[in-house]
């Protein structure tokens, strides 16, 4: 008796979950969660903002890695580009902008102008760097991006133009907006969280649209089979170049947000070890999925935070991520998102071990809607699973 009771409850749960997991409801739930976080303790707000910024950094990186198969070890260059762009505008142009728009609103205007300048700066750098880099592939692409990143690092440290303030970096002071009595400190954790959330959500939506556009489809085609794409008349290196620029721009936006969050644009942002954060987050999260970088960044920041709760372990958090990175690449290329989808299929009863990504054979009618949306979201399809993941 109890057995049938349980199974009927399980099936009811399954259908409820299956019908409920539509993209709209996810969206509403996500927005609610983002609003609720505003009321969290200040440190948690800060940590979540950090998570959003690292997510955007990794998302931009993965646009290149997950969608065209080019592994960059130099995206720190663009992260720093955005950060230094806004930092220098805030430092050098703040008073001038205050003269034009008035002191009340000038911090916000300066922040926005700085953000745009940072983004434009990144694009200006990414156009030639990308054009040169995409001539190479695989290891050689990784090496040339590493070299460009470290070239940027050396120039920022040595500061031949007198703009970047050497190893100390540029301090970022965001200021306070004063609107007839109400003053809002832009750098305040909650305000900055709201700014970051709006920016990251908008940028993510933009990337999502690009990925699902004809352009994105072509990129995936190039990744799966460059020769076949070329035979269809696609100029692969042009598409790689364009993807490189878009990827750099997204990372640049993340860099702008990073500068405000850290209150400084420091040369360390260009160093290859910063570029490696995007690699770690993306690979752990699952490079073959659109949301992989988000999940990876979440794991990266929150596990690091959890480890830091234990003083004995705090100093060795990199050990954990090194081991996790090795384990993911060796045994589970789909990463954490792949794991979550597998878990979802288990819960929903679409138990099919031959398909770890849970992407085919999801025939449960109530589940069709969400399954279909997942298909769109994933840069990887089933070819991907056979090519990159399962053949250990």
């Amino acid at each position: 008796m109890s057995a049938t009771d349980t199974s009927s409850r399980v099936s009811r749960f399954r259908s409820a979950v299956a019908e409920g997991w539509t993209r709209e409801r996810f969206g509403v739930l996500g927005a609610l969660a983002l609003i609720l976080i505003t009321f969290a303790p200040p440190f948690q707000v800060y940590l979540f903002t950090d998570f959003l910024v690292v997510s955007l950094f990794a998302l931009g990186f993965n646009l290149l890695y997950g969608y065209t198969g080019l592994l960059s070890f130099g995206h720190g260059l663009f992260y720093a580009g955005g950060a230094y762009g806004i930092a220098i505008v805030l430092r050098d142009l703040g008073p001038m902008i205050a003269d034009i728009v008035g002191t009340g609103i000038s911090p916000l205007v300066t922040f926005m102008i700085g953000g745009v300048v940072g983004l434009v700066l990144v694009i200006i750098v990414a156009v030639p760097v990308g054009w040169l880099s995409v001539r190479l592939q695989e290891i050689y692409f990784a090496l040339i991006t590493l070299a460009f990143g470290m070239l940027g690092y050396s120039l920022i440290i040595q500061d031949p133009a007198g703009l970047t303030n050497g190893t100390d970096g540029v301090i970022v002071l965001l200021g306070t907006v004063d609107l007839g009595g109400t003053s809002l400190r832009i750098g305040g954790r909650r305000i900055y969280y709201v700014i970051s959330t709006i920016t990251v959500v908008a940028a993510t939506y933009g990337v999502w649209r690009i990925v699902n556009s004809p352009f994105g489809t072509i990129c995936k085609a190039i990744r799966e089979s460059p020769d076949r794409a070329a035979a269809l008349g696609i100029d692969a290196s042009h598409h790689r170049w364009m993807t490189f620029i878009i990827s750099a721009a997204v990372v640049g936006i993340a860099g702008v947000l990073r500068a405000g969050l850290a209150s400084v644009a420091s040369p360390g942002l260009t160093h290859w070890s910063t570029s490696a954060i995007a690699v770690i987050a993306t690979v752990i999260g699952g490079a073959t999925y659109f949301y992989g970088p988000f999940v990876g960044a979440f794991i990266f920041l929150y596990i690091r935070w959890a480890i830091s709760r234990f003083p004995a372990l705090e100093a060795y958090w990199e050990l954990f991520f090194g081991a996790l990175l090795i384990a993911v690449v060796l045994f589970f290329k789909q990463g954490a998102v792949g794991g979550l989808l597998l878990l979802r299929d288990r819960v929903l009863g679409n138990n099919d071990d031959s398909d770890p990504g849970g992407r085919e054979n999801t025939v449960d009618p109530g589940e069709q809607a969400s399954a279909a949306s997942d298909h769109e979201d994933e840069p990887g399809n089933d070819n991907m699973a056979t090519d990159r993941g399962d053949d250990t």
Partner: protein
Amino acid sequence: MSLTSLVPLIGISDVVIGLSLGSRLFLIAVGLSLIFGVLGVLNFAHGGFYMLGAYVTLAVVSNVIDNFWIAAVVGALAVGIVGAVIEFSAIRRLYDRVDSDLDQLIVTFGFVLVIHETVRFIWGSGSYSIDPPDVFNFSVTFGGSTFNAYRLVVIGLAVAVLIGLWLFITRTYFGSLVRGTSSDREMAAMLGVDVPRLYTGVFFLGSVLAGLGGALSAPLQSTSPALGDQVIIDAFIVVVIGGLGSMSGAFVGAMLIGMMQSLGPQFISAGSIAIPFLAMVIVLLIRPEGLFGGIGE
């Protein structure tokens, strides 16, 4: 500026320091290059191996036996074993993947973090240093400048390693197997070469060289956990300039970068640390196979 006014600026000691810096770079880069040439793996953890070699040598000298040369051999062999275990347990699983190159790079990067943190766990974050072995720990004055005689020993050993490796690859049976497997892995396997074992052997050899580099330079620098991260980037520059897979290229590239590190700041005050990276970019774009090509050259 005329030549006569330039020449006195270059002291003999600067040249010797440059060459000894180049020698330690050569020992890392040649192992990196050998592994890439045969296995096709770009080992990000090679800088970590170098650092580990230095640490093991320091530990043996200060705790076990007060003989630098024995300690250096122990250090090099210990690193070789670590390398062989990593190849055997992790990297081996990736050879047959479609995009194996990048997966290998990411896995070896994972080992960068693991080695770095393990070293920090065992030896702490501080830096260590030891004196050169007593026999060579004296100053040489030559042409008006002074340097430690041990630097000459390091340079001599680097040259000896280059010659030894060259003889090993071109004149021995094992060397011919390495060359054969490097140029056509399937054919070598079909002809009865035990490719997996050969790969482990080459990885062992490359790791031993990195460990030896670390061991020999322990008296010349302070050893800290950050050492691996610094040195791997220099090694990447060297192998790119010399050509991935080329041993003589690694030697010339290493000496070039070593001299640049030693003499560069005297000539170009701004941008001197940027020049090696600029050179790396230019070589990758114009001659991705490096200035010297191919294994065994």
